[in-house]
């Protein structure tokens, strides 16, 4: 057993008197030389636990020992801490940030040169040493944040969601960097909402709503659903219908679309059903598949939602026109000398799910806002449901439902008042409004929150309310900007059940996400990287391009980003 650098037991923390427990009896141990994952959706208590270990918050109950002393009194020069927004001074340069943290953490002056050299080499920031931290890209800021945490080799390294929102290449580089720089003396605590990152940790603590659901090697949780995962290969156009039927079938606990196949998790002890029982053609092939950490998590939470979307059941059928539902032609947006989106073109036909994939800051939301008429393009044109955004902005907006990234409803109005407002804003008359509100309240289980301020609801319910407000007027086109960011996998499944159901009714969906695996639900995907579209195609076609067996969307994206970077370098050289 390796040395324990930090341990906590029975941690309880409540922020609001008589409110919910942010942490409820959590235990965690971080051992030297090992990667400990702290995994869970937003609001699970990850940041609170990390702050407790950093000695920034004192728990209401429980013992915390860091480097052999109580956390509040530990030797902080031996703790490397990278908070969620990296803790960088944006108006200081790269080297000034490093110097500040070196001084604060008491790095001996004679070691400074060597330490800086090594970190700048590793992070590839040497060229930018004199650049202001605020002028770095997201991926570079993240690396600088890590360098500041490691400027004096700590014994405990606390990383609070270091990889959120950055591109998969940077994520992978960061992971390798932590492994290499930390070596076998440092205990690393890596918190993340990405469940695939958890699989790579030596040991994992899985938090949900302040409680610890699993502690131990990630494999143990993954193994608990061994032999229960199958893939059902069906014709591409049938996969959504098959998924719906399969999820409603007996013995199926959870399922998702994966490219041209449907991936299912069976209930414990359930016999493998026939293809026909799952609603697929009888000759459809069924293959066992490898379980993932996420499957284990969903199993712990009691399985995913049923396959039929009550929202879609009541939705009007959208007539299929000949016009493309969404069309972007050379959309470009420049802010000063910064190009946020460059020459983005695509066309989405009726009843199609089209995904925009890319890291934060790549230009997804900018493209989105141009198509909603919220931003005027610097060049190019767009049309929604046949309405050109230049001449018929209002008509175009009326025919789309928009769910913004982040919670953008009125937090200090009640849920009911928000619904009333949006029903009015979309021009529903009194009776329509009443019916629509009753329906979404039932579908999204909002009944118990109706009188509460929308801002005080848990994240999952906020996202549900946002979607509810976007679909009340039954628009033919839906724009969803990061609808599932930060929510737990059950809520994610529920969202996709609704989306799949609506698409079957003929609704066209444009969705952005930085969860690569969610791209699998889309009919077609466009990868956006550094404001350019670097590839468009079906998920399976893109994965095939990655050139390796059983490639994930993430592999595909990494291959494409590397090709794009090589291309740019080639251009620079020429």
């Amino acid at each position: 057993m390796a040395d324990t650098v930090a341990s906590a037991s029975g941690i309880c923390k409540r922020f609001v008197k008589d409110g919910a427990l942010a942490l409820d009896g959590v235990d965690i141990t971080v051992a030297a030389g090992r990667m400990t994952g702290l995994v869970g959706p937003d609001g699970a208590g990850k940041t609170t636990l990390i702050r407790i270990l950093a000695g920034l918050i004192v728990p209401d109950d429980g013992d915390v020992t860091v480097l052999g002393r109580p956390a509040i009194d530990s030797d902080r020069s031996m703790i490397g801490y990278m908070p969620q927004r990296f803790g960088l001074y944006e108006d200081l340069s790269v080297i000034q940030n490093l110097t500040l943290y070196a001084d604060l953490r008491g790095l001996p002056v004679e070691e400074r040169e060597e330490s800086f050299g090594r970190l700048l080499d590793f992070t590839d920031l040497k060229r930018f040493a004199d650049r202001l931290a605020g002028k770095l890209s997201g991926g570079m800021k993240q690396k600088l944040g890590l360098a500041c945490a490691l400027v004096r080799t700590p014994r405990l390294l606390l990383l609070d969601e270091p990889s959120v929102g950055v591109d998969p290449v940077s994520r992978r580089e960061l992971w390798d960097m932590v492994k290499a720089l930390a070596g076998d003396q440092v205990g690393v605590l890596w918190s993340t909402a990405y469940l695939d990152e958890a699989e790579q940790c030596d040991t994992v603590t899985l938090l949900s709503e302040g409680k610890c659901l699993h502690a131990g090697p990630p494999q143990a949780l993954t193994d608990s659903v061994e032999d229960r995962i199958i893939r059902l290969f069906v014709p591409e156009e049938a996969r959504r219908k098959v998924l719906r039927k399969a999820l409603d079938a007996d013995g199926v606990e959870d399922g998702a679309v994966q490219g041209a196949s449907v991936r299912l998790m069976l209930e414990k002890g359930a016999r493998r059903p026939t293809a026909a029982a799952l609603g697929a053609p009888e000759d459809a092939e069924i293959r066992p598949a490898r379980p993932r950490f996420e499957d284990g998590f969903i199993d712990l939470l009691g399985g995913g939602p049923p396959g039929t979307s009550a929202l879609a059941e009541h939705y009007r059928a959208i007539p299929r026109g000949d016009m493309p539902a969404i069309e972007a032609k050379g959309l470009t947006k420049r802010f000063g000398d910064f190009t946020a989106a460059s020459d983005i073109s695509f066309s989405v036909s009726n009843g199609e799910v089209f995904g925009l994939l890319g890291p934060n800051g790549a230009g997804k939301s900018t493209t989105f806002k141009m198509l909603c008429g919220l931003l005027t393009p610097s060049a190019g044109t767009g049309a929604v449901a046949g309405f050109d955004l230049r001449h018929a902005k209002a008509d175009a907006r009326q025919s789309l439902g928009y769910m913004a990234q982040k919670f953008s409803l009125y937090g200090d109005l009640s849920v009911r008042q928000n619904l009333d407002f949006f029903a009015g804003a979309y021009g529903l008359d009194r009776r329509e409004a009443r019916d629509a509100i009753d329906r979404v309240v039932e579908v999204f289980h909002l009944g118990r929150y109706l009188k509460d301020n929308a801002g005080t609801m848990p994240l999952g319910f906020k996202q549900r309310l946002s979607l509810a407000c976007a679909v009340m007027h039954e628009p033919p086109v839906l724009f969803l900007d990061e609808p599932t960011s930060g929510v737990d996998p059950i809520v994610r499944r529920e969202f996709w059940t609704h989306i799949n159901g609506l698409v079957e009714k003929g609704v066209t969906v444009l969705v952005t996400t930085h969860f690569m695996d969610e791209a699998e639900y889309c009919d077609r995907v466009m990868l956006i990287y550094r404001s350019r579209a670097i590839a468009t195609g079906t998920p399976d076609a893109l994965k095939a391009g990655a050139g390796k067996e059983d490639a994930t969307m993430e592999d595909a994206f990494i291959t494409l980003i590397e090709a794009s970077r090589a291309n740019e370098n080639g251009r620079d050289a020429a």
Partner: protein
Amino acid sequence: MSAGFDRRRFRAMLVKEARQIVRDPSTFLIAFVLPILLIFLFGFGVNLDTARTDIGLSRQDDGAAARALAGAFQHSRWFAVRQTGAIEPLENALVAGEVHGIVVIPNGFSREAAAGGGDIQVITDGSSPNTAGFVASYADGVRASWAAARAAERGQPAAPPIALVPRFWFNPALASRYFLVPGAIAIVMTMIGSLLTALIIAREWERGTMEAIMATPLGMGEFIASKVIPYFLLGIGSMTVCTLIAIAVFGVPLRGSPLALLVIASAFLIPALGLGLLISATTKNQFVASQIALLTAFLPGMLLSGFLFEIPSMPRWVQAITYAVPARYLIPPLQTVFAAGDNWGLFLPDIAAMLGFGLLFFTLAIRANRRRIA
């Protein structure tokens, strides 16, 4: 944060703070541009001295005395007079705001005057009380001096047995900029000490850097010192700029010594910075911090310090409140050092009061910080 004071960590924080000040245009704006703006505003724009005021004069008596008094009003350097017989047009003018008061010389005034009496009526616009008070007292003044002159002409002893000959010390011309400019310096130091300090610490919370430096061995003492010292120097710097402008541009005399001015200003910056720290310890949000700073530092400094409104003329309970406003102890010594000269006997109690407030605020701020981090 841990205890103890490490010079290297402190120096690193100081260097960081200085770099940020240099690089951040908004700091420069609040520390230098705004003070200069304020000084010019108070120096030129706000003027509590009166020029000629428009009034109406209704002379309803045709006697010689009435005509003579009307002439006295016409020639007064305080009034621009619009004279009529009937009062009605003047009433309309008063309502329309064209005149600020009406003096009525009633029918029978000359007869009464001959008998040694003679009342006039003054109607003023109570919706602007300052002007109303001015019109009333100056109108009475005109009448009184007319009566005195008339009595002298007739060889009678002056009607008021005691004549008041006012002589204003320290500010002989009663130019309001002489006391407004030192007051503006107080406002400027309040802005830098409380508002700017609260803002920059709230900014560290908002940008997430506070969390990162709190997780280092940085001690509370080092942190506070690294925030206080740069903004103390900035406060003194902009006080100096204001003083130089006051002397050079507005001809405000500095009769006391620069040393006394420096000591007084420094003593005031201590509670101002303490309040800034206290505000930032209670909010992590720049917007809220600026609101609280306005309400707790800026407005009391403006209204309750004796800068714009004299404390002795306030209601008793408001006077009681002013004792809790640190700026109240700054204005008198500041005005004294400008207008009169060094008088340490007067300065020291005020300086002691300001330092007392400083101690209180710093203690509270350190406590609040410790509780939140812990």
